[in-house]
């Protein structure tokens, strides 16, 4: 009689343990996979990388870049269309390319800017804000001029990543 009662208690206990373990596993899965992965750092670096590769040719700045009517997006075959979600209106990116004199750091041409310039105001204000990355490299021009090329990129997309 007592043994039967003990078995019943153990069965209930086993069910309780089963539910606790199953609940913990589900919780762990939800924690691990439930959070969005922030890939904006990768995205903005790829964007900057594409621009850098597009405007120089083995260390030499391409001639077109210094022309007055230079269209950065068309020249580099880039589009700033964002996914059609969260009410985004293709305003999730910003890109600025500065061509500076290497010695004086003065601007050779007016900075090439594309996208939503307002995003820059939110740089460095934490993960819930746009991701901003700035990279620079040394480059020369056909006539031997020395330049510092400074590329600044911003990706917002906070609703999807942060």
């Amino acid at each position: 009689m007592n043994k039967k009662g003990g078995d019943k208690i153990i069965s209930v206990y086993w069910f309780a343990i089963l539910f606790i373990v199953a609940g913990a596993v589900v919780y762990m899965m939800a924690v691990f996979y439930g959070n969005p992965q922030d890939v904006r750092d990768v995205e903005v670096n790829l964007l900057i990388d594409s621009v850098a590769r597009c405007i120089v040719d083995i260390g030499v700045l391409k001639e077109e870049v210094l022309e007055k009517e230079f269209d950065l997006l068309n020249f580099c075959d880039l589009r700033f269309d964002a996914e059609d979600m969260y009410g985004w209106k293709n305003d999730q990116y910003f890109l600025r390319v500065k061509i500076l004199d290497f010695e004086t750091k003065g601007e050779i041409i007016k900075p090439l800017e594309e996208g939503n310039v307002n995003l820059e105001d939110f740089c460095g204000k934490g993960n819930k804000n746009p991701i901003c990355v700035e990279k620079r490299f040394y480059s020369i021009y056909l006539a031997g001029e020395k330049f510092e090329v400074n590329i600044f990129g911003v990706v917002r997309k906070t609703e999807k990543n942060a």
Partner: protein
Amino acid sequence: MLRGKNAQIGETTTWLVATLIIIVILSLSIVFVQKSSFDKVRFKDSEFDFFIENSLYSYLLTDINGKKVYKIIDENGIEKSTGELALKVFREMYLRENGGDRYFVWFGNRSRGYSIFGENVFFGQDVSDLHSVGTVPYEIGSDLAVHKGVDIGDKYVEVHAK
């Protein structure tokens, strides 16, 4: 009767200990998952190499008093004019990038396969320990490091950054 009670107490204690062990293991797993779940994907790709690589090509193609840097290095090694320009290109410029997140940049030359650290008067001793690895970015601990080298005659100039 007393013996039966003792047996019950022993059995209950076993299950209590087992339950505690299960709960401890589950709690540790949950804490581990919470800490290890990553929410940000960092950019660790060859783009890092591109900026250094491009600067290196531009540097070697730069004219100093009507002579290309690679020719001067081929004839005289790294001397005053080429060394000072290298300091501006590889140290001053990159240490300013993104608030100075690259804390070590070294430029110099040495014979291929030479195993001891490189050293020159401009960059000091190369303490990066990068010289034995290939030309792709790789990680040392949590740091992304870059090694890029170019053959010039019998010399091998290289840039290290991390």
